[in-house]
């Protein structure tokens, strides 16, 4: 489904990713772990199409399509979803309006009929309950005044509504207490299916207690330096990233 080959990326002239290769099949969950500054978030942003990242080499193919050639909205329509590490606040735009605009934009891109307000409300209500998202939250402006947990739950709600083929979770566990982590972890796990794939980017192992990965990769110094099964995450939790600092240098 996702084929990243020798990806090289610069930010402000500084090389961040230095030849990253990664392949994810549908139905799989891959985790990328690594020390701070390894390039984890850069990878997430490049996949979603954020401006300010210069791809200087390599390729990213998503279901046979050149992903890097697509505008961010076209990537979303193609089925790529990024759960933001820092969800953005949008004053003046209600969460409900934001969700409806997003879902209808993707439906339009797929040639499907837009939801009207009533149908959309039903569609949303079916997803909000398990994520402990209240109607009040939906009325409030997007992420404005939301707690850390509310912001991340809102990200998972968007993921549930858009039902992406590939979800990239960028440090979705950061800033969450134990209860919020459980809701988010269970929420994401419920979305796992044989037809989609996930790339879970995290610094810690704890989110992987909920979303057990098929493969775990260590990203250090802009490259994947080691890969293994779920056991690798536990090993990293014990030993830390110390040994990879040398490899990356």
């Amino acid at each position, binding site marked *: 489904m996702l084929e990243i080959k020798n990806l090289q990326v610069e930010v402000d002239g500084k090389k961040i990713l230095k030849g990253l290769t990664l392949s994810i099949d549908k139905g799989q969950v891959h985790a990328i772990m690594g020390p701070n500054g390894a390039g984890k978030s850069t990878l997430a942003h490049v996949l979603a199409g954020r401006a300010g990242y210069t791809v200087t080499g390599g390729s990213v193919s998503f279901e046979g399509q050149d992903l890097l050639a697509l505008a961010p909205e076209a990537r979303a329509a193609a089925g790529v979803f990024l759960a933001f590490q820092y969800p953005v606040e949008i004053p*003046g735009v209600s969460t409900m309006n*934001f969700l409806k605009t*997003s879902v209808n934009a993707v439906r339009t891109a797929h040639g499907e009929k837009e939801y009207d307000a009533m149908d959309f409300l039903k569609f949303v209500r079916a997803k909000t309950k398990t994520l402990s998202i209240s109607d009040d939250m939906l009325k409030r402006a997007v992420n404005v005044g939301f707690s850390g947990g509310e912001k991340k739950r809102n990200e998972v709600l968007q993921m549930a509504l858009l039902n992406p083929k590939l979800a990239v979770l960028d440090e979705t566990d950061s800033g969450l207490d134990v209860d919020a982590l459980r809701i988010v972890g269970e929420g994401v796990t419920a979305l796992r299916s044989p037809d989609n794939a996930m790339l879970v980017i995290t610094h810690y192992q704890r989110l992987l207690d909920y979303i057990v990965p098929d493969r775990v990769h260590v990203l250090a110094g802009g490259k994947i330096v080691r890969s293994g099964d779920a056991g690798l995450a536990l090993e990293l939790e014990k030993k830390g990233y110390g040994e990879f600092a040398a490899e990356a240098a």
Partner: protein
Amino acid sequence: MTVGTRIGEGIGWLDDLRHQNRTAFHGLPTPKMESWKYTSLKPLYGFAFARPSSHEPPAGATEAALAALGGARLIFVDGIFNAGLSRLIGPAMPLSLALLKDAGAVHARLGHIAASDDPLTTLNGGFIDDGLVLMIDGATVEKPIVVEHISTAAPDGIASHPRSVIVLKANARATVIERFSGTGRYLTNPVSEIVVEDGAKLTHIRLFEDSEAAFNLSHLTARIGKDGAYESHVLATGGALVRNEMRIELAAAGADVSLNGAYLGRGKQHTDHTTVLRHSAPHTTSRQLYKGALDDASRGVFQGNIYVGEGADGTDGQMSNRTILLSDRCEMDSKPQLEIYADDVKCAHGATVGELDEDALFYLRARGVPERQARELLVEGFVAEAFDALAEPALVELMRARIVHWLAAGKTLREAA
């Protein structure tokens, strides 16, 4: 300027008032006047604006969304009341009718608090065209009173000088929605005098949707009594040049004023919001929030002055003006001012000028929203925040719908750099 038959001619005090004002008028404001530094009326010099004649407005000139509110409707065309299009129920009536019914009651109010040092108010006073008269004794008018000022084109331009008087006596409550619209080149020079007495509340919505060749120079004076409230919501999307000046006195303890404004400009539009709030009694509160988005070579002006007089202790005055620039050619001049002569006051002002939030734009696009639509949604959200204070959801929706309409009509909402 041509002189002809005007409403109420032959009523002695009104003839005198017009005469006094004509004598006192010595020309339009110039940039040498402090409060006209950023707004030039040069395009108006030498323009022979004709006096209004009774035109029928073009089909569809009135606003269906306002008619649907179901209350009283007063339609003025080129400053002349159009009975056929109007719906007179309740206490609201045109000035022309109020003069026939009880000229004395009008005399007791008209011209009493209008600014004497504003050339445009003086100009209005020299002509005094038809406008709204609303006088309520302690009652509540449930449905919004809709007033539309429609101007039609004439070869040499039309000038109208609508005059409105609103008096809410103790504990009265009403909502007034005014809309300015028209076709072609014209000048509308409306003057409103508003008195909100003890415990009364006026919610005042004004839509400046004039034609893109038009000039609208609006001047409003208000006086708020003990525990009285004046809540204003202004949306300016039209006109070649719109100036909306409001001078409000918080005259007794507990007076509460909330001014909310949104302005959207494109092409070469010029929009000016000028406010002077005079806190002259203790424990009065004012809130001002003006938000705008400017595109192309449009220009915005905000001048806000909070004046706290001697003895007005416990005054709480907050003023905020925030603008998004959507092009490199637009310009915003923001001048908030505080003048404080009392102790123990809580006053603050802030002004920001910025661009659309790129992070928010990316967030929306990453959720599948095409760039143009994402920009529109962000601008809508930004300016519509000015109407968060509106209690009636239907009216919030009305304002939002007009913002959305304006955004959809644009060609040049700034593309990604």
